[in-house]
């Protein structure tokens, strides 16, 4: 009995193996690059934007006759869930054709998968997750990140706000790692710089109603309402602040820097909202304009969203590495370790010994006439318009 089973199993395996290598008939060798991000669920628009951008990078490279390999994007959905993340990361890492990865927007997922990448020696570049521990919580050579961490972002934010005379804050943050992290670092820096946090409210990421928290906030009369979290909640909170007649400056984090934030709000309410994001302003750099132009031409069904540019930069860098040292995971990892002052569409990139991009510029944004405008270019900085004044 057993022998029959074994025999048929073996036979099927042999047939399957024989069928496998028939595909690679083109002149160039095919190299796969994994993209992992949330393609379904609440943060899908950022994930799909990231995937499209990485896909764009691959298409542009494949159209280049000088490239040595034919690239293929192996896109996987992590659903923003750590267990699914481990699953798809294992899938990508176990595939020998996959040489590098452009991975993760959700920090919890990235935290859970770094061990997998290390175990399988797969070099990855994180394109969106901002938790510091992803690069600094371990010594894995395989893990890199092009975007800055939330530490840099909040330091700049606290500095900026206190310099503009704001003194008191009420903090609302979602209870995901993202929101909680922002709360921790912002509270720390703003207190160091002499600001005062009057109250902190944690809210779940699917909450609709914030009137209870905001009514309490109203009672405390803060100068600023700080929100650490993503776009959908940001919209609701800004909206409900108005309902309750709260007269305070609204300050957000990188998670609300998306077109969806403005579209989801009345232009009157969006006006004057402040937010901070890691990375140089894409629109300002020549590479960034090229990226946005190409993205438009590619006719994807949605925009690149807030982190598309990072995914594009990460995918491009990964392919550069493979062009240089060939499709070998260990060599690519070694190559990435030496990246210094590399030009990219999100500004120059230098990886430190933890693989973290240290030239993490922070860009300050304010919404003006229904657009995210760089603070320095805005009429607010010029003094023509005014933010909500500190009390």
């Amino acid at each position, binding site marked *: *009995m*057993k022998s*029959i*089973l*074994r025999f*048929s*199993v073996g036979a*099927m*395996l042999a047939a*399957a193996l024989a069928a496998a290598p028939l595909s690679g008939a083109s002149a160039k060798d095919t190299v796969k690059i994994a993209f992992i991000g949330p*393609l*379904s669920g609440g943060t*899908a628009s950022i994930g*799909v934007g990231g995937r499209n951008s990485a896909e764009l990078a691959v298409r542009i490279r494949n159209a280049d006759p000088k490239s040595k390999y034919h690239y293929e994007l192996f*896109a*996987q*959905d992590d659903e*923003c*869930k*750590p*267990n699914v993340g*481990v*699953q*798809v990361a*294992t*899938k990508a*890492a*176990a*595939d020998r054709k996959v040489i590098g990865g452009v991975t993760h927007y959700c*920090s*919890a997922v990235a*935290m*859970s*998968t770094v*061990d*997998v990448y290390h175990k*399988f020696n797969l070099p990855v570049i994180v394109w969106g997750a901002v*938790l510091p*521990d992803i690069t600094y919580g371990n010594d894995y050579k395989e893990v890199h990140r092009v975007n800055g961490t939330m530490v840099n972002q909040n330091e700049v934010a606290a500095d900026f706000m206190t310099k503009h005379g704001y003194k008191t804050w009420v903090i609302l943050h979602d*209870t*995901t*790692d*993202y*929101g*909680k992290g922002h709360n921790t670092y912002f509270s720390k820096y703003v207190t160091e710089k002499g600001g005062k946090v009057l109250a902190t409210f*944690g809210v*779940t990421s699917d909450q609709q109603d914030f009137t209870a928290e905001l009514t309490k906030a109203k009672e405390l009369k803060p100068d600023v309402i700080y929100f650490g979290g993503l776009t959908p909640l940001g919209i609701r909170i800004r909206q409900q602040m108005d309902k309750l007649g709260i007269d305070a400056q609204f300050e957000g984090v990188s998670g609300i820097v998306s077109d969806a934030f403005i579209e989801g709000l009345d232009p009157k309410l969006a006006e004057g909202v402040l937010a901070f994001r890691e990375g140089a302003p894409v629109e300002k750099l020549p590479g960034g304009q090229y990226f946005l132009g190409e993205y438009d031409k590619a006719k994807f069904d949605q925009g690149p969203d807030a982190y598309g540019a990072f995914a594009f930069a990460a995918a491009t860098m990964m392919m550069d590495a493979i062009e240089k040292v060939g499709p070998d995971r260990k060599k690519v990892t070694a190559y990435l370790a030496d990246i210094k002052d590399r030009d990219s569409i999100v500004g120059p990139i230098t990886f430190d010994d933890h693989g973290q991009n240290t030239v993490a510029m922070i860009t300050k944004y304010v919404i003006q006439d229904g657009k995210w405008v760089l603070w320095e270019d805005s009429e607010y900085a010029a003094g023509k318009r005014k933010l909500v004044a500190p009390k």
Partner: protein
Amino acid sequence: MLDRISPFAVAVLAALVGVVFAIVFMEQESDVAVISMVAAAAVAAWFAGRIGVPERVARAAEINPGGVSAIAAIGGLAIIAAYAEDHFPLLMLATVMLYATVALGLNIQFGYAGLVNFAGAAFFGIGAYTSAKLVGSGVPAVLSLPLGGLFAALIGLLLVFPVVRTRGHYAAVVTIAFSVLFKTFLEVNDTFGGPQGLPVGAMNLFGWDFGESPTLFGIEASFYLNYALAAFVILALAFTLVRRLERSWLGLALDAVRLDETGAACYGIGIRRAKIFAFVLGNVIIGVAGALYGCMQGYVAPTSFTFSDSLIFVAIVLLGGMGSPWGMILAAAIVVVLPEKLQAIQEYRFLLFSIVVIAILLFRPSGLLPRRVRRYFPEGGR
């Protein structure tokens, strides 16, 4: 036409076809191949049903229960062996087996005792968090699995009172509330790692490090082979336990409680005791599976154990056919592997998955492999 072949031979043949199908299916990457294989399987299953294969297999199981279980075990091991070197298929296989174990635990609760539990993922999570906390603090892994089960049962005791007192939809809301509460609690509470979750160390069983790749017959196998085998053992134990339970007087009492509480009480069955027993036993099984799952994933976080994950477990039980242990395994395989195989259609796959589940519920309301009516006399006529 099957009359001339002995039921046992039919069972062997069916197992063989199943194993070969599973191995080939796991290998497929392209959408066309996946979809056509699913279609072929559906047609084959329909045809097998027409010519009476399920009845034969069931009969073989009645005549020779040990033999049929052995075939199934060999089949399972053969699939694992075929992929001994491949990490990803082994991870999937181990996941299927652990999910099936969870479904078996839930099956005791609502397949037998009629207790609805919408917090399966929460108890699964308790097991996983237990191993995360224990393995980190130096407790031997051998203990972390049973302790996972123990903690799941203990925390479940908090719910026993409302669960036993309520019925039907009212009981559903208790477990739903617990499910939501559990995830939110983990997120806001920092001692359990908060929203970021906790890393889990690799298991170490009597010096056998699960994080290392074992070498068998000169081949270096994937380290997931350790977990796949451990998951297989746990599934086999849970399966045997559930089968034994079903055939015992306890199982009979549980059935009676589910079908007619008043009637059961009239015959002197302790309704509360039966329900508490089923609830606790189910949670123990779920917790043990969770503890191993935590080690295998190497990481636990609240978002892995949400209400929607509980729904996936409920879906497995209903798709498999309430009360049918074999059905649990089949349904777990479908529910875990199919969405993964559908990665190619990425953002559309949840939509497709939900439609498939609705279709199965509409056209096979009692599940893919419905539970059979108890038969006390296996030699009875046809």
